[in-house]
């Protein structure tokens, strides 16, 4: 069932209940009031009649009948009767001559017990009143048809029915138009999104002029689309860069092999070619290794092996590892104020990835400085660990700092240094994965400092 119909039906149900309660109450009160009114009038009349009859020495029956006939009670078909204690009819008057009303003796007995009772004779309402004086015991009966009251009640009932039904219809129509208007933006947003696909991410949802919830929703979705488009772009760039990086050594290998296969050569010459090819293959395998790590560090931490990691231990294994890659490289650890509690050194994370991240930064620091020396300082502060890696290298030009974390970006592309331009990008991703942050301070000609902050594990 569409939402607009559901809203409409809910509206109708609420209005139905409210109107039903209001109409029923109004009708009930009018109905009981009319009845009460009539009964009051009838009983007054009965009391008067009984009193008049009780004073038979003053008022004879003819006089009473004259009084009755001239009484304007605004009631139709009045009938007055009186019975003595032997159930004998002692008085009878009717507006209509043919109107013969017989009263059951049960009613008379009942009236004698209760004093006053209300009952119906045909379409008339009636009152029986037991009047007692020391001399007389009379049951006076007055009956009449309340034509005016009934007509009013009928009229009221018609009015109530009419307003009830028209209220429901108006609510239904109003609710339907209202909810249709309410739901229209949803349909529009859905249509807009349908237009946008993975191949055409540039489209956006029109947010409209009014700053309402739909506007907010559209803006949120547009922001999501922006992020999606960005990540698609990044992915596309990454794939094209990676394929380029992969194809360069492959082309080199293939052309070298092609040239050397053109004729028979000396064993020494094959050796030279094979060594060159071996270099390229090593380069390739290193590249694919880095790409694998990159893929691992991308996305969320869901598939990773996350354990408590001691950061100081990771840092302490670095100098030897860096020395392994190049004997000239020197890493100095400076742990000036170690915290007394080892908990302050523990990070929830993947030890291998964290090691790779810091190693990449440190080996960059060694690679791009003349003395091939990097200094690592560790500080454990309130809920964060700060690792600073500084070198006295040539520094990074300020305008290039914002690019250095992009994959395949290399400062000073003509540099003779080997590398893919993936190290810092990978490090950045890994640190981001651990909810940390990397900042760079660099003064060209004097040196660079990378500052990594990661939150400590909370137990």
């Amino acid at each position, binding site marked *: 069932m569409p939402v607009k119909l559901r809203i409409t039906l809910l509206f109708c149900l609420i209005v139905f209940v409210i109107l039903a309660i209001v109409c029923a109450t109004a009708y009930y009160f009018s109905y009981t009031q009319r009845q009460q009114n009539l009964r009051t009038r009838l009983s007054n009349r009965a009391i008067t009649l009984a009193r008049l009859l009780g004073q038979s020495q003053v008022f004879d029956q003819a006089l009473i009948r004259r009084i009755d006939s001239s009484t304007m009670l605004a009631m139709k078909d009045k009938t007055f009767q009186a019975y003595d204690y032997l159930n004998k009819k002692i008085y009878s008057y009717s507006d209509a001559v043919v109107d013969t009303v017989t009263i059951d003796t049960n009613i008379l007995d009942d009236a004698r017990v209760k004093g006053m009772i209300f009952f119906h004779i045909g379409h008339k309402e009636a009152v029986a009143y037991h009047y007692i004086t020391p001399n007389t015991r009379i049951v006076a009966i007055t009956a009449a048809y309340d034509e005016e009251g009934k007509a009013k009640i009928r009229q009221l009932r018609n009015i109530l029915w009419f307003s009830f039904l028209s209220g429901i219809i108006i609510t239904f129509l109003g609710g339907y138009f209202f909810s249709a208007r309410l739901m229209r933006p949803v349909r529009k947003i859905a249509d807009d999104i349908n237009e946008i696909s993975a191949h055409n991410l540039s489209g956006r949802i029109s947010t409209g002029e009014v700053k309402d919830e739909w506007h907010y929703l559209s803006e949120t979705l547009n922001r999501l689309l922006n992020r999606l488009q960005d990540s698609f772009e990044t992915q596309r760039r990454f794939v094209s860069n990676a394929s380029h990086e992969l194809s360069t050594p492959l082309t080199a290998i293939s052309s070298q092999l092609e040239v050397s296969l053109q004729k028979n050569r000396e064993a020494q010459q094959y050796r030279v070619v094979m060594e060159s090819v071996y270099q390229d293959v090593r380069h390739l395998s290193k590249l694919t290794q880095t790409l694998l790590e990159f893929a691992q560090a991308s996305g969320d931490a869901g598939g990773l092996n996350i354990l408590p990691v001691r950061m100081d231990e990771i840092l302490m294994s670095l100098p030897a590892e860096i020395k392994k890659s190049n004997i000239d490289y020197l890493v100095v650890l400076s742990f000036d104020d170690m915290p007394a509690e*080892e908990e302050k050194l523990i990070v929830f994370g993947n030890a291998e990835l964290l090691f790779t991240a810091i190693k990449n930064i440190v080996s960059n620091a060694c690679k791009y400085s003349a003395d091939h020396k990097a200094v690592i300082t560790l500080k454990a502060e309130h809920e964060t660990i700060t690792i600073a890696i500084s070198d006295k290298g040539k520094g990074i030009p300020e305008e290039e700092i914002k690019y250095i974390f992009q994959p395949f970006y290399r400062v000073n592309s003509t540099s003779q240094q080997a590398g893919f331009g993936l190290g810092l990008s990978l490090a950045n991703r890994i640190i981001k994965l651990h909810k940390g942050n990397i900042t760079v301070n660099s003064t060209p000609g004097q040196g660079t400092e990378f500052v990594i902050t990661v939150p400590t594990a909370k137990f």
Partner: protein
Amino acid sequence: MNLDSKEVKRGNDVINLTAKEFQLLEYLLRNKNKVVSRAAIAVNVWDIDFDTNTNIIDVYISYLRNKIDKPYERKLIQTHVGMGYILKENDR
């Protein structure tokens, strides 16, 4: 102390140590009942360049003490003020 499985036990309790703590304990055990100076520890356990004025050895000794000695009444690692540390089986 099991050097192959890198497992440390005191009595029947298995104690979890980090790599460096393990190396430090190993060094202290190899020099059982001997006072070892901070310099000796730095050279043998941290065979890497360190800034001077670092308190890392004292900090690591305290980490190690927390894990090895704190839950027990008999303290194995003791400080010889001005000289270094000693690991002793029993304190006479």
